């Protein structure tokens, strides 16, 4: 079989991978900010929940989390009488986002804490509320600090999407395995697939660089 004939199904899978990566990265960023800011909260309950979330999801394996959401959660639901069966796509995106969000939360927290004390004092002197200080003074200055690590996490997340093929989601990894089963042409298929992931990672890296530049414009102004 010609190797070009593999491309249509693989590209179909790659499109699923792109969607998975986009949705889980965006949702993961939401979790990262919620838990990263939550960990800094003076409210014990909020900071406690954030810490537990961060530690549990950083301390266990993504695949364990994915399997737990997909296989174990429905059983837990049965026991308490709620239908918690998640469609593979929901379980996949949720597991990826929860996992990457926990790592991102530490980045968010660290970057916010790293904004200098004098900025907090200036905000206090101008009578900003703590919430306004966070939203308008601290986060905008912390964002450029977060971006390089966020870029790495986004690449990590893109790679991790391959694991959702294990709960039979039709992503690039899943398609590759399907075609390999059918043709046994392993070398060609996996070489193509590796380069497809590499290509997506390069595009993603370039996009994150652009984003990094746009949130940090004020830093380079005039220099």
């Amino acid at each position, binding site marked *: 079989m010609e190797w070009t004939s593999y491309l249509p199904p693989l590209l179909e899978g790659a499109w699923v991978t792109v969607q998975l990566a986009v949705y889980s990265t965006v949702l993961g960023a939401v979790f990262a900010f919620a838990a990263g800011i939550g960990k800094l909260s003076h409210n014990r309950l909020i900071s406690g929940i954030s810490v537990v979330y961060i530690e549990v999801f950083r301390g266990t394996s993504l695949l364990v989390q994915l399997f737990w959401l997909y296989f174990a959660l429905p059983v837990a639901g049965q026991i308490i009488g709620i239908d918690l069966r998640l469609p593979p796509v929901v379980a996949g995106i949720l597991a990826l986002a929860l996992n990457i969000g926990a790592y991102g939360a530490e980045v968010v927290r660290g970057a916010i804490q790293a904004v200098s004390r*004098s*900025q907090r*004092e*200036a905000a*206090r*002197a*101008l*009578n*900003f*509320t703590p919430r*306004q200080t966070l939203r*308008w*003074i601290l986060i*905008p*200055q912390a964002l450029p600090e977060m971006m390089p690590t966020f870029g790495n996490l986004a690449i990590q997340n893109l790679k991790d999407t391959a694991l959702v093929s294990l709960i039979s989601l039709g992503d690039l990894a899943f398609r590759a395995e399907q075609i390999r089963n059918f043709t046994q042409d392993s070398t060609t298929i996996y070489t193509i697939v590796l380069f497809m992931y590499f290509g997506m990672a390069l595009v993603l890296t370039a996009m994150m660089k652009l984003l990094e530049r746009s949130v940090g414009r*004020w*830093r380079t*102004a*005039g*220099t």
Partner: protein
Amino acid sequence: MSDPIIKFDKVVKRFGNFTVLNELDFEVGTGEKVTIIGPSGSGKSTVLRILMTLENINEGVVYVGGEPLWHERKNGALIPASEAHLRKMREQLGMVFQQFNLFPHMTVRRNLTEAPVRVLGLSKSEARNRADELLEMVGLTDQADKFPNQLSGGQQQRVGIARALAMRPKVMLFDEPTSALDPELVGEVLNVIRRLATEHDLTMLLVTHEMQFARQVSDRVCFFDKGRIVEQGVPDQLFTNPREERTREFLKAVLESEA
């Protein structure tokens, strides 16, 4: 002296074992321009930082406009102030920092409009008008759309002054406003403060090492040492004919280092 707008009543401030302010009694009248001088570590800046609610106090009471700053009255007793009380009290105060502390991610104009819009609830156009007036006053109209890191230190500090004024405080606190500046940039900042002192009835409290300037703008100069006021008086008297030996030593040392 008219009714004091600021009053420190036996205020003690400690950092660990180190006593910064030692039962300090201190008053500033409404509209008065007071300069605090003294060696480093004498607690000068701490006075300003306590007033701006950046540092809490350990003992005593601070009054601003007759109201306790770090306390609230409840059933006749004074209890530690809530954040809401502090917020209300802070409306009367503005501060200029040694290191400017401008918001680096905002343009000059937004540095001036951000707090009036978000904190005072001004409309964008009102805040903008106010900002443009202030920028004209400090001579920076043409820099409005630049970011702080594109300005010189002197320009940044003038923005810092305008930013504090945009909140229309009754009391302005200047914490060594020229200490971080190159010598050739000190003048432009002092000129702005001087104009403020002569043209407005603002109450002003300054901590500075610029003795000549202190002499020109102040109604009263206080010499601080070891957390207490050693001596205070009108500038001419204190600078030319200090009563206390410690004041004399300090002034002599400062004047020698300046020369």
